[in-house]
């Protein structure tokens, strides 16, 4: 691999471009939002190469984009954003990822750290008991085939009807917690069989439920609109996706697309970029199946939200309403969505792939829920379990530069192995406990992989977006208790 300085051009302190001359076949340049330090991290692995490879995809408009949390993925880099024209563009399951509509949520409370601290261990235990997680974790819902179809079509709304959550939650979820166009007929039996027992489960790996406290307010006016009150306010941050249902759906369509791609005469540098024209049976079927999996994921997060509320109500002896447990927002970070944008002064409908990237629509955008429309969509950026997370808000320039997209988290670091081999899960728990953070995990072995050393500093990542004028920081949160699979 060439040294990155040989093919990456610096535009300013936070924008870097890979010219189309880097590889014959690139249709647009690549653009990475990063500090020099973050770029160098990405250059240690295949992430820059992958950003260039995405630029080969037919119908791609403007740039193959990468967010500052960029790291190596499969086909697409994690942190990759690519928008395709509908008439001659393609959709690629690899541009969404295996965990379709993986995403995050924040649930507010009116509790303070001082009130929660004495009950924190009890609370962590309750959450750990109540939220199925890890290998073999099974949800409480025993779904019939018809019910599963309804979950696919209606997403979070189905869960609310089943008594999991509140109607007003729905307006605080991206796309209202349900993407249109979902077609259960496009989902395989295998995806159904994997997904049926897993609805209402957290999963494992980097998925989590964290009890956090507001550490600092960075934009007071917006923070107030988002429901933040004062430092010490307790919130719950959760991260999970579409479980085996989405993994299988991705797998099914990778296979189909690989065959279709040859038929459509599309040649790409990496087979994991397998794709088909958006306006083809394969493309349309994938988008219909992806929407079904996305809705499953919204329903999954909705179910877990209710389990969180019930756990809090039990521990604190008050109803979740009395505890002020409103949803702040829910964002997807693995998706492909048909969106209306403006490009070169003209309105244009595009299929925007966000793989490890979230929407960050600014004030005034019609897809921002009415309650936030005058300030912009809340952007949730989890960090690692030992440091902090951010809430930000999208700015107008994000629409011009990144199709209204920002990073989805801290991003992994590659050069962590030496550090991690020194760490044992139990030591990570001990260290976190020393910081006042309680950890409950089904598998302590897993925790070394989730230690701070395994991630970039999310503060650096969010800084890039603020300095590049893409998003503005609103609040910083720090963990109190971590529940994992």
């Amino acid at each position, binding site marked *: 691999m060439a040294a990155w300085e040989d093919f990456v051009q610096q535009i300013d302190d936070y924008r870097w471009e890979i010219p189309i001359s880097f590889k014959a076949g690139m249709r647009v340049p690549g653009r990475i939002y990063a500090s020099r330090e973050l770029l160098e991290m990405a250059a240690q692995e295949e992430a820059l190469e992958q950003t260039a490879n995405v630029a080969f995809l037919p119908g791609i408009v403007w740039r193959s984009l990468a967010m500052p949390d960029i790291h190596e993925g*499969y086909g697409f880099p994690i942190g990759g954003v690519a928008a395709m024209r509908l008439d001659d563009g393609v959709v690629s399951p690899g541009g969404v990822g295996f*965990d379709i509509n993986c995403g995050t949520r924040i649930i507010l409370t009116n509790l303070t750290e001082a009130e929660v601290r004495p009950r924190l261990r009890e609370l962590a235990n309750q959450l750990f008991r109540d939220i199925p997680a*890890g*290998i073999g974790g099974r949800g409480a819902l025993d779904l019939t085939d018809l019910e599963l179809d309804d979950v696919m079509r209606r997403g979070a709304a189905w869960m609310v009807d089943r008594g999991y959550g509140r109607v007003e939650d729905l307006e605080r979820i991206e796309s209202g917690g349900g993407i249109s166009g979902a077609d259960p007929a496009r989902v395989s039996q295998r995806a159904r*069989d994997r997904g049926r*027992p*897993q609805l209402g489960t957290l999963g494992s790996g980097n998925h989590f439920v964290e009890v956090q406290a507001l550490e600092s307010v960075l934009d007071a006016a917006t923070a107030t609109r988002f429901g933040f009150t004062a430092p010490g306010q307790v919130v719950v941050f959760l991260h999970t996706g579409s479980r085996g249902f989405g993994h299988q759906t991705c797998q099914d369509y990778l296979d189909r697309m690989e065959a279709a791609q040859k038929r459509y005469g599309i040649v790409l540098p990496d087979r994991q970029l397998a794709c088909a024209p958006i306006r083809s049976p394969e493309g349309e079927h994938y988008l219909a199946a992806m929407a079904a999996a996305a809705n499953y994921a919204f329903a999954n997060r909705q179910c877990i939200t209710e389990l969180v509320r019930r756990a809090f109500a039990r521990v604190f002896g008050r109803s979740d309403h009395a505890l002020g447990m409103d949803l702040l927002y829910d964002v997807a970070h693995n998706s492909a969505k048909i969106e209306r944008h403006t490009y070169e002064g003209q309105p244009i409908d595009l299929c925007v792939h966000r793989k490890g990237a979230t929407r960050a629509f600014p004030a005034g955008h019609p897809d921002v829920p009415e309650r936030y429309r005058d300030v912009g969509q809340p952007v949730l950026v989890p960090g690692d379990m030992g440091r902090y997370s951010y809430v930000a808000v999208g700015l107008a320039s994000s629409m011009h530069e990144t199709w209204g997209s920002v990073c989805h988290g801290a991003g992994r670091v590659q050069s962590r192995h030496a550090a991690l081999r020194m760490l044992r899960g139990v030591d990570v728990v001990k260290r976190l406990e020393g910081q006042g953070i309680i950890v409950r995990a*089904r598998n302590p072995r897993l925790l070394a*992989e989730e230690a701070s050393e395994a991630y970039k500093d999310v503060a650096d990542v969010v800084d890039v977006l603020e300095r590049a004028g893409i998003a503005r920081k609103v609040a910083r949160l720090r963990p109190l208790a971590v529940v994992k699979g």
Partner: protein
Amino acid sequence: MAGETDAPLVPGFELFEVTADVGVVARGPTPESAFAEAARGMYAVMVELDGVRERASRVVEVSGADFEHLLERWLLELLFLTESEGMLFSRFEVSLGADGSLRGIAYGEPIDAERHALGPEVKAVTRHQLAVHPVAGGYEARVVFDI
């Protein structure tokens, strides 16, 4: 092909790390043994293999266009049994047909969160660096899992 003079490989596997995920390199004197070891490697990500008793078995039959495709299909089929039936496996017998088919028997037991030392779920078998090829003394299979 493996050279006549090379000592046959002892079956085994090693896990290796990629940025956010984990992979396995499996080796054996025959392609069948490399496939069996790759499966052991996948389950070693999810559970400490020693704790998985052989109390039940499942038969898996898949076919593929080439060894890589066959390896992917084989592992995906096992993963499906783990997610849909809640089974873990620790030993595998594999036989390959001349027509690109694979028949495997997986031995294990249902997941018991109290007794099994569980690791992360394997979400998917990726095609990243996916390879099966002859090496001195046998065959080597390489596969990366999304976890």
